[in-house]
């Protein structure tokens, strides 16, 4: 936690230009505004800002542009391409799989967010209790969160394997489902297979944020309620839930955003198949661009999805603002 003064080497920059402090130097030179004035703030901010404009904002605008153009293998390398108006949008949205993908995306997001929230909340409440090792165990959950998504996809694909997967055997042993489920190859279950893996991945983050929210509730509120004769359920309903409203709001938005970023699990588990039965918008967009080279189509879906994500993110920012004020 501590570093000693000797290890840091203060003054190297300052001293070179720090003459006898009584010597007279006049106005700030251009160089000095960057060392001492507002120029420093501007410079530091611009580093990030310019980078994000070039590699973050510009690509979005470029996607919008491409969604209005004809972009395929042949025009890929051209700087100017023919404009086609909203033809790409009409084309993409009228494809037979469009409705299905939209539905899947909705199911994937709704199920993931709901289950992550409920399970994360339950776990947060459990580990909120005071017992030896609670903190360490809570931290260990994050191990899942830092794993590469593709590896997680591989592991779940193996665990959910139809013939000799451990999940099927567990279901059989516990008599929950005696026959084998071919999770990935059955169109009826493939989306749920990926959803399960995604719920697993998202639990730690939910748990972490909810734990922080729970820890911020003053203990004396519970004590007061207890004196008023409120039981555990009543305390949860009348104190915990209302006090967690802001956290829950922020968390739902964040979970939606993270779920819409999920790509690796689809790549590792089902490739959106069989026959698009587990395809979602963010994966479909990529498939169109990089597997069928229908870059205009991929861009069009990307534009629609980016709009959704930014909408949700704006809600999130709004809710955190509100939290700070209220």
């Amino acid at each position, binding site marked *: 936690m501590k570093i*000693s*003064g000797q290890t840091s080497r*203060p003054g190297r920059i*300052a001293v070179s230009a*720090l003459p006898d402090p*009584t010597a*007279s130097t006049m106005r*700030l030179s251009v160089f000095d505004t960057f*060392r001492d*004035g507002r120029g420093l703030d501007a410079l530091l901010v611009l580093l990030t800002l310019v980078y994000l404009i070039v590699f973050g904002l510009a690509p979005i605008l470029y996607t919008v542009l491409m969604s209005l153009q004809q972009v395929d293998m042949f025009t890929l390398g051209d700087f100017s391409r023919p404009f086609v108006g909203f033809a790409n949008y009409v084309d993409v949205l009228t494809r037979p799989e469009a409705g299905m993908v939209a539905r899947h995306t909705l199911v994937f997001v709704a199920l993931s967010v709901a289950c992550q929230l409920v399970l994360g909340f339950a776990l947060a409440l459990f580990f909120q209790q005071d017992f030896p090792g609670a903190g360490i165990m809570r931290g260990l959950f994050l191990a899942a969160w830092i794993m590469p998504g593709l590896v997680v996809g591989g592991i779940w694909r193996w665990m959910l394997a139809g013939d000799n997967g451990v999940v099927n055997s567990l279901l059989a042993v516990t008599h929950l489902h005696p026959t084998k489920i071919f999770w990935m190859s059955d169109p009826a279950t493939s989306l749920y297979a990926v959803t399960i893996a995604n719920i697993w991945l998202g639990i730690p983050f939910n748990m972490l944020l909810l734990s922080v929210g729970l820890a911020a509730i003053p203990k004396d509120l519970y004590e007061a309620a207890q004196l008023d004769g409120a039981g555990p359920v009543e305390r949860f309903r009348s104190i915990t839930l209302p006090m967690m409203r802001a956290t829950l709001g922020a968390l739902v938005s964040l979970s939606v955003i993270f779920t819409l970023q999920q790509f690796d699990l689809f790549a590792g588990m089902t490739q959106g198949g069989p026959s698009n039965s587990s395809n979602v918008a963010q994966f479909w967009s990529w498939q169109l661009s990089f597997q069928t080279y229908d870059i205009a189509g991929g861009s069009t879906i990307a534009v629609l999805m980016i709009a959704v994500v930014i909408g949700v993110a704006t809600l999130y920012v709004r809710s955190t603002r509100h939290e700070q004020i209220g």
Partner: protein
Amino acid sequence: MQITLDGLQKHYGTYHALKSIDLAVPAGQFVALVGPSGCGKSTLLRTIAGLEAISAGTLRIAGEDVTRRPPRQRDVAMVFQSYALYPHMTVAENMGYALKLRRLNRTDIARRTQVAAATLGLEALLGRYPRELSGGQRQRVAMGRAIVRDPKVFLFDEPLSNLDAALRVHMRGELRDLHDRLAATSVYVTHDQIEAMTMADHVVVMRAGRIEQQGRPLDLYDRPASRFVAGFIGSPAMNILPGTVDPSGRAARLDGAEGPLLSLPMLLEPGRPVLLGLRPEHLRLSQEGGARFDGVVDHIESTGSTTFVKLKVASQAMVMTLARRLDVTLGDPMQIGFDPADLHIFDRESEASLVTQRDAPPRAGRA
């Protein structure tokens, strides 16, 4: 070294925090800036330090224009209210840091740190980290960090406000001693007027970004230039009651009071609405004539040495302090007298003193 501020202005966006401050601090003086919260004391101090850019006007330290210079080229030392000790450095490193930045060699740094530590009784703590110190010790280290540098100017921003009452009183004396021994020039921000009165050679009372009045402590006490300064300097605060000048022009009557007139130390036009100010310690119990009026005891408190009597006078509240015990019961009528020379009179509109207008004291401190 003297500090001279000429028409200094500070804007934060559209907020005008300092409105044309003129101030001259002669070398070796101890100047206190006082005023209510938010009046711009810290802002003024920080513009002197160079931590806030000056929007207009000039600032000279030791005759040199330093208006646009960064803090490191002003040779000022500052003691922060929070002490601002570097948590990752020991006491010795904290104190020697400024010297290290000036590339003094190790032995010089160690020697000067030792001397400063000895001055403040910190020798035993040099190897500790700030988190291992008590509040009072941290405060000393912050002072030590300032004095090792032997700067042109010391700046203090409420350095004692985080200490308990007894230590604060003790440190007041010590700080003033230190100032005298180092023959330093100090600017000291406080919102505690007692601190300002007891420590400073020169007190500057600020209000809403302006200097309301400045002068020697007792001059401010004796001749406050406005109702604001009158209320601010002195504790408990001066009683200020609305009154009207009598047709004779030589006396005034408290508004709503039937009792005798209060004779004025000067002539004013009859019927003029004024504010009458009387310090609690200038009031006394009175049986016979002279300037006096009637009140009713409303509340009484005693610290043992001093008795605070709250009175109702013509349905207005008034406080009187007496340096003795008093045996009265609530509701007792009481006759209060005072020396007419102690009466302060302010214009009701402008709230400026009508007494000081007559014999304004020499404005100390303006170069």
